[in-house]
């Protein structure tokens, strides 16, 4: 919205007389300004209609309470798509392995081993589900609006998938310490589908922030496990040793 400041002043009656005249004149010819003014007024009206908002909130509560059986169904479907999606993610990561070049500094190592994860879930079909903020967050993550995505994920701090993608969002924003916290949370919450990814990205964050010892510890663990990142971790360790 280009004219927001002017429109606010106009609506609040704060425009000086000459500006006011100009504004009114512009309204007659400037369709964009006219539309923006109308939109602003509509949104303010909605914001002020507390009664309707409360009614809708109540209705949504009732809907939630009565949708239990549907929710159960959703969970099952959700799980399947999670597994499918994480397999997809793993393949994507595995594929990029072959394209990797030998680089040596830690910074370069990070850059060559890190690629933006895709949120390749069927987000739309799941959008009616119970952890809606996570689904919404994934949508924003996909749109690369990482700040808004983080707002969403922070609403359900106990959701494992949300925390994983919260960590990935922080990486995209260069906030590695926060990312480390998220991945640690996922790892600590044992027994979930995302530990492999969380460990891998945690190690990469340590690498990026020059905590080589911690990084090596995790890469060695991953290289010794039978997870999908095994080969990648082994390769990275080789590169890391070369650079020493």
């Amino acid at each position, binding site marked *: *919205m280009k004219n927001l400041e002017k429109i606010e002043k106009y609506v609040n009656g704060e425009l000086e007389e000459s500006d006011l005249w100009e504004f009114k004149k512009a309204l007659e010819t400037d369709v964009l300004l006219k539309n923006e003014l109308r939109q*602003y007024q509509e*949104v303010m009206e909605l914001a002020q209609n507390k009664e309707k*908002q409360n009614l*809708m909130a109540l*209705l949504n509560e009732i809907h939630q309470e*009565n949708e239990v059986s549907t929710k159960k169904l959703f969970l099952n479907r959700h799980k399947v798509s999670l597994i499918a999606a994480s397999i997809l993610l793993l393949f994507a990561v595995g594929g990029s392995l072959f394209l990797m070049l030998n680089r040596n500094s830690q910074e370069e190592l990070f850059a060559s081993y890190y690629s933006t994860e895709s949120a390749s879930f069927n987000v739309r079909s799941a959008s009616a589900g119970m952890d809606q903020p996570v689904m919404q967050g994934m949508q924003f993550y996909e749109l690369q609006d990482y700040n*808004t995505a983080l707002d969403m994920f922070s609403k359900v701090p106990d959701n494992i998938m949300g925390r994983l993608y919260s960590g990935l969002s922080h990486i995209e924003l260069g906030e590695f310490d926060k990312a480390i916290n998220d991945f640690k949370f996922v790892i600590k919450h044992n027994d979930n589908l995302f530990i492999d990814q969380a460990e891998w990205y945690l190690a990469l964050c340590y690498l990026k922030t020059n905590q080589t010892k911690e990084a090596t510890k995790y890469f060695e663990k991953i290289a010794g496990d039978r997870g999908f990142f095994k080969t990648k971790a082994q390769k990275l360790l080789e590169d890391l040793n070369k650079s020493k």
Partner: protein
Amino acid sequence: MNKKVKYETEEIIRGILNHDRIVITYVYKVHFILVKKYVTSSSGTDEDAWDVFQDAIGVVYDFFKRKDSDLSLTSSFSTFFYAVCFNIWKNQLRYKNVRRKLKDVIIEGVSEDEWDLAEIIRSNTQMRIYLKYLDMLSEECKKTLELVGQGLNGNEIADELGLGSAQAFYNKKRSCIKKILELINNDPEYQNLNDYEKP
């Protein structure tokens, strides 16, 4: 817990106007299933049905709010309510560019000039879209926009939010409004709502 199984039209309407949880739960339980059945059998999804139902409750609310103290209908509540739902869904299909043409449903007992149905539906759809995106804003923005609606002045709100000055609040408010306008503007349903208006 009220065990009453059936409500009279006026009781239902009064219940909706007064945000009466028991009455609204009753309306939900009795009517949502049927609305869902209707919508999903005419090219819609469960989610579409829920949107229609919410908008329809909003329309009923607005309609009787305007009529002040007269809560009577010449038809039964369900006849009235379904007619409202059908009309909303008909509009939605038009937005969605679905070819399927539904028959017009006349709303019994309400004369054409008594209300501008299209406008009331539009404002309720807007409200649903607004609330969807309000929910996506940060807690701070939500609180800010909430307080804007309560008629407090800038200094009072700044205090409430723990902001230093009224100016700080105005800046906050502007950035929140900007954010929600951006989100709303990118919503396909909202875009259709506006396109549809153009002659």
